[in-house]
């Protein structure tokens, strides 16, 4: 496919109005009696929106809840008709607004693939050709002839995504659907997006995950109250959104000098595992004795070990780590540059393994609550201005409870309890020493 050039989506003064009927259950009788004066309030979900999305670009749309993002996608997809202006869409378009919409629970996975494909505009022959790919991508070979009502929600969504992603439209609209499926499936979704992008297709992504928008999209539009707030290179727009938004969203860092959040233009985007060309060779969790592990007790010592093929880099590198809870909450980011630790120069380039450096980040007591965590790794230049590589959520590990108090929240404070008598005449229970019940 020769990638088309020019403008894929052009919006000129787009507006969408909704009617808020106060008595939603209006009937024929009520309408007859009220004549043409039906009682409703008008609400502009989108107003005077101008936007241009070039072919082959990946474009992000961000904004708070109810800002009109999803309405915009629905207008682009032809589901809703605008009341102002007309969107010009150049090329076949497909929208992923909800995965598995249109699946019939009583039908088998196979029957639903054909049905869903037909709804998305496939002919049966198109689907037959792609059927194995679709099922393979969803990893449902064994269950494809089961009724989908027996599917887990993850299986359901995987199949829905797989069908939608194989439609191969020139323009793909995606609404927050990547928040589904397990870790490895999400990764494959991102890989698939990267592939579609490489094929010159246009992707319009609506998401609350600012990290993802930052990594995936060159340009981003921030929409608020149905109006365009800012449009421009993603890092700048996301920065302004964070400044303007009342509270930072999960997964974004509020402080300036971090690994997450705002990537520099021209960075290499990585989705999925490590490739042969990557400078980062391995990331491990090791105990103080240097033994690898995949779980660590809360409050216990741990070391993040990153193996970097620094020999292939042309300049000094800074290693940055981002620690996330599995729900996306950003726990911490650190980088070797800030710690002032000199790192990994392009030493002797000859020979295998020459110039490979092991960088450790040692934590005496991992002060986070038990749960599942993920580690992102990025390589920057010494000034942190350039990003060479970014591997998001590269490893996943468990932090286990390690006895002691039952705690809740984000961090494990690691404190001790104590109580002592302050006045002999005071009433009330007396207790001594640490470990006594503090309640």
């Amino acid at each position, binding site marked *: 496919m020769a990638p088309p050039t020019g403008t894929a989506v052009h919006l000129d003064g787009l507006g969408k109005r*909704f*009617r808020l009927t106060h008595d939603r259950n209006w*009937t*024929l*009788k009520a*309408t007859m009696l009220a004549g043409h004066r039906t009682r409703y309030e008008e609400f502009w979900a989108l107003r005077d929106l101008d936007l241009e999305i070039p072919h082959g670009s990946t474009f992000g749309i961000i904004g708070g809840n109810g800002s009109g993002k999803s309405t915009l996608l*629905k*207008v682009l*997809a*032809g*589901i*809703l*008709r*605008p009341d102002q202006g*007309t*969107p010009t*869409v*150049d*090329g*076949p*378009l497909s*929208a992923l*607004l*909800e995965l598995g*919409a*249109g699946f*019939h629970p*009583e*039908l088998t996975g196979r*029957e639903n693939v*054909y*049905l869903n494909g*037909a*709804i*998305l*505009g*496939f*002919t*049966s022959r198109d689907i037959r050709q792609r059927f194995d790919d679709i099922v393979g991508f969803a990893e449902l070979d064994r269950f494809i002839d089961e*009724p989908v009502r027996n599917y887990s929600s993850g299986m359901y969504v995987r199949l829905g995504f797989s069908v939608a992603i194989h439609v191969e439209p020139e*323009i793909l609209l995606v609404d927050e659907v990547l928040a589904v499926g397990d870790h490895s499936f999400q990764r494959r979704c991102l890989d698939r997006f990267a592939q579609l992008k490489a094929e010159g297709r246009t992707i319009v992504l609506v998401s609350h995950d600012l990290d993802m928008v930052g990594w995936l999209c060159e340009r981003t539009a921030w929409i608020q109250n149905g109006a365009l707030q800012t449009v421009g290179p993603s890092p700048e727009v996301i920065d302004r959104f964070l400044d303007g938004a009342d509270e930072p969203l999960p997964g974004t860092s509020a402080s300036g000098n971090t690994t997450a959040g705002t990537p520099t233009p021209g960075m290499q985007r990585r989705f999925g595992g490590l490739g042969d060309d990557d400078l980062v060779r391995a990331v491990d969790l090791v105990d103080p004795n240097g033994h690898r592990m995949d779980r660590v007790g809360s409050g216990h010592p741990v070391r993040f070990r990153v193996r970097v093929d620094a020999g292939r880099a042309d300049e000094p590198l800074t290693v940055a780590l981002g620690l996330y809870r599995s729900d996306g909450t950003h726990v911490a980011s650190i980088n070797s540059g800030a710690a002032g630790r000199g790192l990994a120069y392009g030493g002797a380039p000859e020979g295998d393994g020459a110039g490979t450096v092991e960088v450790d980040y040692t934590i005496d007591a991992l002060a986070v609550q038990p749960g599942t965590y993920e580690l992102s790794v990025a390589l920057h230049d010494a000034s942190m201005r350039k990003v060479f590589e970014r591997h998001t959520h590269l490893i996943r590990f468990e932090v286990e409870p390690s006895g002691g108090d039952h705690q809740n929240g984000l961090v494990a404070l690691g404190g001790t309890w104590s109580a002592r008598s302050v006045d002999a005449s005071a009433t009330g229970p007396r207790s001594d020493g640490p470990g006594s019940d503090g309640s």
Partner: protein
Amino acid sequence: MPLPRLPRSRRDLHALLPVDLLVNLTLRDLRSKYKRSALGWTWSILNPVVAVVVYSAVFSVFLRIEPSIGDPSGLHSYAVFLLVALLPWQFHVNSLTEATRAITANAPLVTKIYFPRWVLPTSSVLARFLTLLVEMAVLLVLIAVLQGHVAFQWIPVLMLLMALQLLFTIGLALMISAANVYFRDVQHFLGVALAPWMFLTPILYPLNMVPADREFLGIGYRTLYQLNPMVSWAKAYRNVLYDLRFPSAERWLAIVAATAIVLVVGFRVFNRLEPRMAEEV
């Protein structure tokens, strides 16, 4: 319409008449209808069987309604007389009942994916039409075996009649399903209207039992009665399968005119109401 432009010719054709989508939705309807029921497809046979037994008992035995004598076939059987008009009528009723909810019941689909919405009521009707085809085939064989009444040579005329009824029903289904998105009263109204409609159509009794010599506001009962388009269908089906003769020219005219009007109006109403369906559904 702000529809995505589809530049390729095959896509254009597909957008105009999404055959695969129609086929798949119709299959969904048929496949899922009797899933998880022990008797399965037997239910679709049971329905007309029970109807013919009960109606024969009540109208032929108790009320002693005499079926007309087939001209020129000479046939005189209430069961056959009833069935040749009852099966198309049940197609009519089932199609409309299911098509009314075709869009409202598929709200998750309508609000999340764009595809031509007329496909939804149309595929409901198509699914019922396939059922009618099977029922008609069974009926033809049964009356040939049990009554020695051979109507096979009339199959081409029957097919034409059924094709016209299909289009007529699609037109009605389009109107009703679209209106039901905005006024849920429609589905309740339909439930109320269908029973009297059946009694005002010559299915259980011959048309000549409707008095031609009495008048209401200066218009003959028979004339008023024939304003119901379903009268023409019942009569025409009976001509072809019971009398074994070609329906009269006026019948054909009435049928073709009703079909054309309903189909055109149906599509126009539907197109008018379609743009806001996703927000009203």
